[in-house]
């Protein structure tokens, strides 16, 4: 069972206080988008063994959504950051690179 620190209220939250929200940093495509764009937005998800970016909601706590960078294989948490972030904070990217030198940053993950 994970512990993730909610960046909104500062609580080190037990997983049972949290609700998962799937992959983070997905760009919304609405009317006017191509079928391919819309398919990618709606269905295409990364499923890495390793570094992953996720959405979580502190559902039983402050109710706020936040984002987390963690490793799906070891469950190491590289950091949590606000849901309003369009980019991954530098400190988190640095930590990922320090811990996982072989990690290749996906294109959709933007540095701050």
């Amino acid at each position, binding site marked *: *069972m*994970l*512990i993730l620190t909610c960046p909104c209220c500062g609580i080190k939250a*037990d997983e049972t206080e949290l*609700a998962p*929200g799937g992959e983070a940093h997905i760009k*919304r*495509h*609405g*009317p*006017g*988008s191509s*079928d391919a764009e*819309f398919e990618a937005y*709606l269905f295409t998800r990364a499923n890495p063994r390793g570094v992953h970016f996720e*959405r979580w*909601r502190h*559902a039983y706590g402050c*109710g*706020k*959504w936040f984002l987390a960078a963690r*490793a799906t294989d*070891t*469950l*190491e*948490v590289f950091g949590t950051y606000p*849901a*309003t972030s369009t980019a991954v904070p530098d400190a988190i990217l640095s930590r990922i690179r320090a*811990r996982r030198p072989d990690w290749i940053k996906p294109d959709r993950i933007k540095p701050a």
Partner: protein
Amino acid sequence: MSHRLPSGGRLIDRATTLGFTFNGRRLKGYGGDTLASALLGNDRMLVGRSFKYHRPRGIVASGPEEPNALVGLGQGARFEPNQRATTTDLFADLVAQSQNHWPSLDFDIGALNGLMSRFLSAGFYYKTFIHPRAFWKHLFEPTIRHSAGLGRPTSEPDADRYEHLYAFADVLVIGGGIAGLQAARTAAESGARVMIWEQSAHWGGRAPVDDPDVEGMPPDDWISATLHWLRAQPNVTLRSRTMGAGVYDHGYALGYERVTDHLPGLDAPRHRLWRVRAGRIITATGAIERPLSFAGNDVPGVMLAGAVRDYVVNFGVAPGRRTVIVTNNDDAYRTAITLHSAGLEVAAVIDARARATGDLPQRARSLGIRVMTGRAIARVRGGGRVTGVDICQHTGTGAAGALIACDAVAMSGGWSPVVHLWSHCGGKLIWDAGAALFRPDPARAPTGADGAAFVAAAGAANGVMRGAALLADARAAAAGGDAPAPEPEAITPVWIMPAAAGPGLRAKMWLDFQNDVKVSDVQQAAREGYVSVEHAKRYTTLGMATDQGKLGNINGLAVLSDAQGAPIPDVGTTTFRPPYTPISMGAIAGEARGDVFQPLRRTPMHDWHAAHGADWEPAGQWRRPYCYLRPGEARNDAVAREILAVRGGVGLIDASTLGKIIVKGPDAGRFLDMLYTNMMSNLAPGKCRYGLMCSENGFLIDDGVVARIDEDTWLCHTTTGGADRIHAHMEDWLQCEWFDWRVYTANVTEQFAQIAVAGPKARDLLQALGGLDVSSGALPFMSWAGGRLAGIPLRAYRISFSGELSYELATPAGHGLALWRALVDAGQDLGVIAYGTEAMHVMRAEKGFIMIGDETDGTVIPQDLGLGWAISRKKADYIGKRAQERAHMTDPDRWKLVGLQTLDGSVLPEGAYAVTDARNANGQVVTEGRVTSTCHSPTFDRGIAMGLVRHGPDRMGEVLRFNRVDGTTVEARIVDPCLYDPKGGRQDV
């Protein structure tokens, strides 16, 4: 025979005699006994029978690794099967019975299986029961079910209570032997918040039995001094009778505290499950002795050497009067010395090693104990009890030499560190060939949230068995740093005895005593190609018994490794999974049983409903009245009565469970236009509008009426199930996508009790209360007004889900019951009734209104339901719009909503499909529609239904055939979904 010694026993109190019952026989033990020691003290060595062959089984061990001494404990609602006698503290009037035998423990029919053992070898089940196929269902399965299972649970509800406890520690030490105590002390001295668990009632582990001194002190003195210090520290929590059951991600650990097992009847939780988050975990879980694999090693009277001296030292009980010790290591000589010191006869120490020159063997020799090196036990004599052993050369094939008469055999194959908790969360092991054991690999420890190791093993659990090295190892585990390397154990691995034993002997060498797995079974599995240790385990059932292979697994995999010619570390171990030993279902459930099994949500009028015949229906965690039963009334009759009363007069339904969400802000209108398929921004204050919400996939997820409260505030009603879900959906979009939009939401579902007042006399009823002007002029259809009725503050929404004149009254929840009662009282002359959810469902079906969850199932878009009128074409975007433009969503062949009327007036089966004569490529019947809602309509006195049908709206009047579960079909005509008052005059008066 096993017996109580005239003196000794450091844990028992001979002044306290405890009577107990085993298999109906009244026996006596002492305070401080375990059930196992008390049974041995009464010469009850035979305590059960094995699972497969029903072989007689005696006590083998003294702790949680015990595979044989499983008993049914207690009576009635407190009866519990499969309790280990070795970890059951004796208490007055304990009642236990042995298991897995019929008709009696001493004479057991199932033991005939033993005669069949050559036909019941590894993989017997797989090979035998697979053919002929028909036999499985009618012969094999019933027979196996009859004989399967170990122990029978009681059918009565558990009489005890249980609880969970969340706790936090910087350092959690699991195991209260001297390594654990030392680790806890070292950690506490650093100022850390420390918790330490010991599974038994006693601290100190094996040291008082095994060690002459600890840091120059008698072990008991060292233990009590350390405990005294720890107990004085405010930052240390000590729990005995608490087993570390599992170690999980991010420092999570479960502790199983047996609070009252030894104090039955005490009004306290029986078990407490500690749910702990620890910064670091130190596993000081000790080691478990391995049996030796020689023929007849399962005969009652053959025990682990460590257990034999435990019984003597701790309980003053001797398993036998004349004991043979068989070993491959020096440690077992402790048993010889202990027995000798207690005045018991040691017939011989049979040592498989060519030489035994360590301190312990020399001390044994100096006491006059006969030591026979290079020897082995060829076979054990005796059936229900050991009578002697045949001795042979260890390097040979087992040609018997001397017979040594004895009534007990103490065996030691070396010690295996308890690596379970280390391994639960991914810790890896290394094979230490010199010491012949697997121990934790510190380079591959479980890692936590920060990526660093969070588990360290200490002491015997780390392969450091005793002495100063053990304490140094414990300090290092607690403080970090490296401990000096321990002195190597004096051991020579022996996996079968004698080394070149033939098939006849190997078929009598037990690896798993509970599941009857022998050396020959594992060798056979290897021959038949089971390379993976996990597969071999399942094929042979080795280690699959309730003890999970604590005794036999290492021996088993060594045999497998030998059979494969592969080194032991290449074969590896099976997976160690929590819990370490079985824990009670009650502990897992904790408080969640009975009334608090799960939250039961109640509206403010709940008790009124209950007092007036409510026939409850769950709606999520809510309970809603399905109908109100009058004395002697059937459900269908009650529903029909309620519907006719509403249609003809006036009725009340508790609609408090409907979701109510306030959406406010300068961008609230814009936000709601994205959320709903239709326009909400242009709704005038004071007005209501029905709206649909879709997911980004385009599918309909919720519906409800939106009221505009003021210029920048809207109130959104959701379905009962939608309140929390839709509020979360709104917050998701607001927090994560449109976080620059100025909108706040508040879920006020529970702030209001809501009552729908429906029926042609609804207005009369409200006017009877007095206050708010509810006339059609002041409060027209699809509008709302705030005010008071009968002095109670409320909002009245003129909306209708029944097709009748209807008001939904929302009052602060604290006034809900008062408003409901006022309506009931004022409505007596009007014949007001309370109606339930089923009447509501039928009335909306008569009106052709859709219901989320009936007409929708996560694959239905509003366009399928004839709700195109509620989809704005003017809006550039709304959630789901792009998805609804996809090719499959605009396919003209999509099934669309229609009404359905059976030709014979019967009620269509729920979920029935419209079948055609065509078949698809797989030979399946082609369908062209399905029923989504179906019921008997009292208004029309016939079955009515709605369904989704291919090209349905274009096929009005056509007759379809719907399947029934009995294979027949029923004909129904496609009609308009709205049967009742299609022009809508009744609701808009």
